[in-house]
């Protein structure tokens, strides 16, 4: 197993993939887009070169599908994982796209369901929900994205302009339409979330998968943030129901909360005295 490191924006390059291929490589799997920092990988370019080498190409597109346009044929994707709850479908149902001709060995035995690929009775209601949800999510994708990208871009631009000692995590352009992720120096993420929550704003600092952990996000560490800055991260996700008013409110309360927490922080004292390198 070879793991590829990412750059400071969370990106890998097709060259990295090409150079990592060995004679016995049978599968390459790249996550389409990152859940925390929103960075979208160059899947089409990677798919092309992987196909030319005759290796299977899998992508975990759970964060991407229903949010950005994906064409498995054009992108030379052989296998693609999906989950309905990421595009307003029911929780507990997902899917695996399998390109015609790709043969998989079943890992759940005891029944011939799904043509022998996965034993056990199908959850039909959830599957129908998956189908309807992806239909709705992709029907007006361009229009939907235009709307939430405007909310996201205004948020990113204003936060970067109005709050000092802040860093945008993830690539500025190659990112999921609804994702914004910041690190605010000298403060800690949970405090930020609690104060936002008290103002009626739901956000997160890492991913739900790691909310029980006290360590900073492994994603933020992987893009090179030091621990103390990774601790002060805020992940905002914009969706269908968000409005301009929501962004107005966020932009009104966020700078006040950040300043309030910084006033409380011993790390900020030195900055105010002007004797620290930041």
């Amino acid at each position, binding site marked *: 197993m070879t793991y590829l490191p990412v750059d400071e924006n969370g990106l890998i390059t097709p060259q990295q993939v090409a150079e990592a291929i060995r004679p016995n490589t049978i599968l390459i799997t790249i996550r389409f887009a990152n859940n925390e920092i929103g960075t979208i990988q160059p899947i089409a370019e990677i798919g092309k070169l992987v196909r030319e080498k005759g290796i299977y190409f899998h992508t975990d597109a759970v964060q991407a599908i229903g949010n950005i346009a994906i064409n498995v044929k054009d992108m030379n994707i052989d296998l693609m994982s999906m989950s309905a709850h990421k595009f307003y479908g029911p929780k507990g149902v997902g899917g695996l796209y399998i390109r015609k001709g790709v043969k998989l060995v079943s890992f759940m035995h005891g029944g011939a369901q799904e043509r022998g690929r996965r034993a056990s009775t199908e959850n039909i209601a959830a599957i129908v929900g998956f189908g309807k949800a992806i239909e709705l999510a992709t029907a007006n994708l361009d229009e939907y994205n235009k709307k939430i990208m405007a909310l996201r871009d205004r948020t990113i631009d204003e936060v970067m302009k109005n709050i000092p000692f802040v860093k945008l995590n993830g690539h500025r352009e190659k990112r999921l339409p609804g994702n914004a992720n910041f690190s605010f120096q*000298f*403060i*800690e*993420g*949970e*405090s930020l979330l*609690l*104060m936002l929550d*008290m103002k009626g704003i739901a956000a997160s600092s890492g991913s739900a998968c790691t*909310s*029980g952990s*006290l360590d*900073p996000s492994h994603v933020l560490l992987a893009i090179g943030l*030091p*621990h*103390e800055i990774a*601790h002060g991260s805020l992940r905002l996700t914009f969706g269908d129901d968000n409005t301009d008013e929501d962004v107005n409110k966020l932009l009104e309360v966020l700078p006040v909360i950040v300043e309030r927490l910084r*006033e*409380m*922080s*011993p*790390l900020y*004292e030195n900055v105010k005295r002007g004797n620290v390198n930041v």
Partner: protein
Amino acid sequence: MYSEKVMDHFMNPRNVGEIENADGIGEVGNAKCGDIMKMYLKIENNIIVDAKFKTFGCGAAVATSSMSTELVVGKTVDEALQITNKAVAEALDGLPPAKMHCSNLAEEAIRAAIEDYKRKNGLLDECDCATACGRRCDDIHHDHDHEFNEDDEE
């Protein structure tokens, strides 16, 4: 989930700030672990007359800082040294298990500030300087007693 008292001390922390010419200053934790607590004490005739804090950390870290400043004021130096992490947590109606290390930090901040006071005043015994020096995150998360039970497991 935090208790109402924790949220109150987090949203309205008591005694935030610095004391000019403090008699004792203690700073514990480190930025890498995600929490730093700095405590300032004003001590007159061996009695703590004022306490202030600055904290970088989670909700529980801020709340335990706030509570411990309330607990130490009016106490003698020796009484303040008897304040345990458990007492701080109990005064806040409990902390979630994963956040108990924050109360260790509060206890250590009090000790460090008093140690600093003693050092400045030539009162420090040889063996007093035990607990409050640079720990690793793991130490803070795993030592002291963690039997404190909280119904809410998140």
